[in-house]
């Protein structure tokens, strides 16, 4: 019986996701199309950007919730394949281009263009987008994406030149972490998602993890994902 219920709920969910993603696509696309109109005032442009940005944020949160739900219900198995890392970072940049322009933030990618690694692209992009989104609200002028691969795995880092992470996030204790950081809203969900996804990536005894520090640009925030 539970199985049957599950199937029905999954069917309902899959079709709702389809509908919601369509709506999100149209909201974002409409904002983008309208923004091409040169006769709009500066404030109008800013409102449209805001519409766009909030649409993207909604999408990020939505992806995270859905992925976490699927992982929890054992409906998501990692889809590990080898991907070009630079391509992946570039896609993250493209996805966030309106936001970057709106905040007047420069994004730089420092990564060997030929570099490849094994990971779940959709989920990892989900993490990168979330962290960029978060960094945008704290950084001063720029965000840097770096990626390096080596014997112990791949490290993708997102660096900003803002004030850095507050102490209560840096010194979080893993057990208390969830409760503590969920109070800070979106950031909490984003970090939880990143942690879950990173830890799903494993190779032999090695396990993926995330690392937060204030070793970013001028002691700004630095978020790293280690994937073995």
């Amino acid at each position, binding site marked *: 019986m539970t199985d049957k219920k599950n199937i029905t709920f999954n069917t309902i969910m899959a079709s709702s*996701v389809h509908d919601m993603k369509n709506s999100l696509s149209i909201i974002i696309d409409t904002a983008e199309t309208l923004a091409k109109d040169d006769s709009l005032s500066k404030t109008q442009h800013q409102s449209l950007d805001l519409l766009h940005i909030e649409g993207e944020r909604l999408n990020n949160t939505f992806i995270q919730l859905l992925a976490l739900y699927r992982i929890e219900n054992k409906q998501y198995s990692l889809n590990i*394949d080898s991907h070009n890392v630079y391509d992946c970072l570039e896609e993250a940049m*493209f996805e966030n281009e309106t936001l970057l322009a709106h905040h007047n933030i420069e994004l730089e990618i420092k990564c060997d263009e030929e570099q490849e690694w094994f990971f779940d692209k959709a989920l990892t992009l989900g993490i990168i987008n979330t962290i960029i989104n978060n960094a945008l609200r704290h950084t001063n002028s720029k965000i840097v994406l770096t990626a390096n691969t080596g014997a112990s795995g791949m490290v993708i880092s997102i660096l900003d030149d803002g004030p850095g992470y507050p102490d209560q996030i840096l010194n979080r204790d893993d057990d208390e972490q969830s409760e503590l950081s969920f109070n800070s809203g979106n950031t909490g969900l984003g970090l939880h998602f990143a942690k879950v996804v990173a830890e799903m990536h494993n190779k032999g005894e090695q396990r993926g993890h995330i690392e937060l520090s204030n070793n970013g640009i001028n002691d700004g925030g630095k978020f790293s994902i280690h994937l073995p």
Partner: protein
Amino acid sequence: MALWSLKGKKVLIIDDFAEMRSSLRNMLTPFDVTDISMANNGDDAIDLISQHIFDIILCDYNLGEGKDGQQILEEAKLRGQLPYSTVFLMVTAESTTFMVMGALEHQPDDYLTKPFNANILQKRLKKVLDKKSNLKELSLALHEDNKSLAIELCDREMSLKPGHHNELLKLKTELLIDEQRFDEAKEICDSVIAERNLPWARLNIAKIHYFREEFETAKQLLEEIINEIENYVSAHDWLAQTLIKLGYPVEAQETIESAIEQSPKSVQRQRMLAETAETNQDFVTAEKARRHAIRTAKNSILSDPNDYTKLSDALIVNKKPKEALKAIELVKHEFKEDEQAQIAATLSKSRVFKAMGREKQSLELIDEVSELVEKSSVPIKNNLALELTETFLANDKADAAQSIVEDLVSNNHDNQEVLDKVSQAYSKSGSDQDPSAMVDSVRKEIRAINNEGVKLLEAGNIDEAINLFDQALTKTPDNQALNINSAQAYIMKMKSSGKNEFLLKKARNCLEKTADNKDLQQRYKALNAAYWKFANKK
């Protein structure tokens, strides 16, 4: 970025949502695309694809009721309407869908997850277009079914560029398995797994065990994979096949059912479920699966009258004879031009009447069947022919049975499985006749024709050989030896007199029929390569 152009490209956008269609159109206009067609459902999309050759197809996976994107892709590929040059991008709402669909035989060139913007679309399109132009030779070799060349080309590509080559390695492994070069395939999988426990490498190792008939090992490996990656659909498919080989049809059925939960719209999988359920005498499931297959395949190239007659048989057991008659009635309308379908439907109908206790009508229908068989312009396919043999024998129509068996044997004179089934049919019916003398004489006759033809070829009398084979093939179009010899005759004719479209077509037809025959593989490969040499000649 803006320098990149798609000028002159013909694009098809398939989405059930008008706003999404226009949004996709808007994304493409900056790249000078002017020729854009739109479809809001699967049937319209398939019509358009059959009328035009598109350069780019953007297709939403979820199209509401009716066909989904995967079915459109499948249909177009099976109809040969998607040339390699066409870029097919599947748009999905969730990235999880990839894993489920990634296991299917027909793959789009890439997946895009909603929402995405023009830059991302451009980047993906560019990547696929680049890849297509890089791997042109390889795809040609695949198209020409020249697997050993394709394997060499995989190696060449990999040696030219450093990197992981996951995709090429995977392709090469699958080609090696097709070529039964299991040791080489296993070596690749082992070395991939030593670095990374990738699902495709594990699945292929299980497949190798399966083909080596080490079914217990295959089962164990497949169960391990499914345990970790529940939504890896093709692992379920292979486990089901393995369980059938091991003699566990009930477990096989459960496995297929769980694969169907992941990917409900696959006609082939529904048929596999129906067949397994029929073996298990679970006619409630069989009925459901046949109905599902019929509904999903409707108006498509996958539609098959066999689903209707098998549904009718299940409905007889499930005590729904009226519905059985309805299913048979549908064959009359939907496969009007198909003589064999009409014969099979009439035969099914006689079974329904028999089950309803209407003996007289049932017998009349069997008379009708034998008339239809006599009038039929094409030889009857194996399964139907065996069914007819049994029915005719059971109803005192020994002559009709014999004429069917003669055709069947001449079509399959070297196929022991069919020959065995023929003698089973006779012994099952309790007939006092022994078909073996007749079978022997038919086999002798076919062998004589083949030998004579080969002699003619060796003597250089190609035209005479072609005449002989042509005549024999009109009577027994599926005979394997005749087909391969005939293909050889056509190729030899072209070697002496040059390329000829008519001969090419005939040779292709013969080759297609023998492509899967393991005993004829060597000859098929050589002739197939020779065929493509002529086909590609200017």
